[in-house]
């Protein structure tokens, strides 16, 4: 976990693991929660296996659907884990503008399911140079550090 480039969320959802897995892997169900209403979501491809495509489109008026997510599944462990990235397209073809990998986990919990999402983002600048610049703690604290650096000295 890199706190500057990653985010992780964990939620206890009061539903069985199989139901949540199904909501994630059935295109008709996935389309109902993936994008916030009233925007409509269309699942153009969902081939839930490593190398399979995950392609969603969105529309504000049910007329023209425009690209929303073009991704590729990297790992699929039934009922346990889904890993996908938008750095690749279906069939592992490199994507033009990807920047994110996500690991979705499903674990049994006494109250239902422990659902986790861990999203990792591309480092926009080379880490080593980043450190040479003095931003040791990365983007999360860059602003504070800069503010300190640029404050007029007494």
């Amino acid at each position, binding site marked *: 976990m890199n706190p*500057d*480039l990653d*985010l992780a*969320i964990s*939620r206890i*959802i*009061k*539903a*069985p693991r199989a*139901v*949540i897995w199904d*909501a*994630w892997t059935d295109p008709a*169900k996935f389309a*109902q*929660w*993936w994008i*916030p209403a009233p925007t409509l979501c269309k699942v153009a491809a969902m081939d839930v296996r490593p190398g399979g495509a995950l392609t969603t489109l969105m529309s504000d008026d049910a007329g023209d659907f425009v*690209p*929303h*997510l*073009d991704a590729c599944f990297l790992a699929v462990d039934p009922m346990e884990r889904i890993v996908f990235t*938008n750095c690749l397209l279906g069939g592992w073809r490199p994507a033009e*503008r990807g*920047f*994110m990998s996500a690991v979705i986990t499903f674990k049994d919990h006494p109250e239902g399911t422990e*659902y986790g*999402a861990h*999203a990792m*983002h591309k480092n*926009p*600048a080379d880490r080593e*140079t*980043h450190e*040479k*610049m*003095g931003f040791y703690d990365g*983007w*999360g604290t*860059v*602003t504070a*550090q*800069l*503010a300190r*650096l*640029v404050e007029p*000295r007494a």
Partner: protein
Amino acid sequence: MEHYPEQLNGLFHALADPTRRAVIGRLGRGRASISELAQPFDMALPSFMKHIRLLEESGLIRTRKQGRVRTCTIETAPFAALDTWLSEQRRLWEERTDRLEQFVTNMEKPA
């Protein structure tokens, strides 16, 4: 969420070059004139000025001319935009999880 916003593309491009990162690093320690900034680099002034202009266009620095000296200062706001981007991604995942939760718990309820 599928693309970096345009503003961030400009920032990442600006930060993708070692000369420009060195300039930002130097300006982080305080304002400096173009000639002070150019001094460590073995580079013709017009080439160096291209980097300065790109940084200025990206919003990462500001320059001001007083007499014959152009002084550069760093702008902190764009760095805040980078922070904000990650918070935005977090919000997106939180809300997505809210919707999934609502969807599966509604399905569970007997009709």
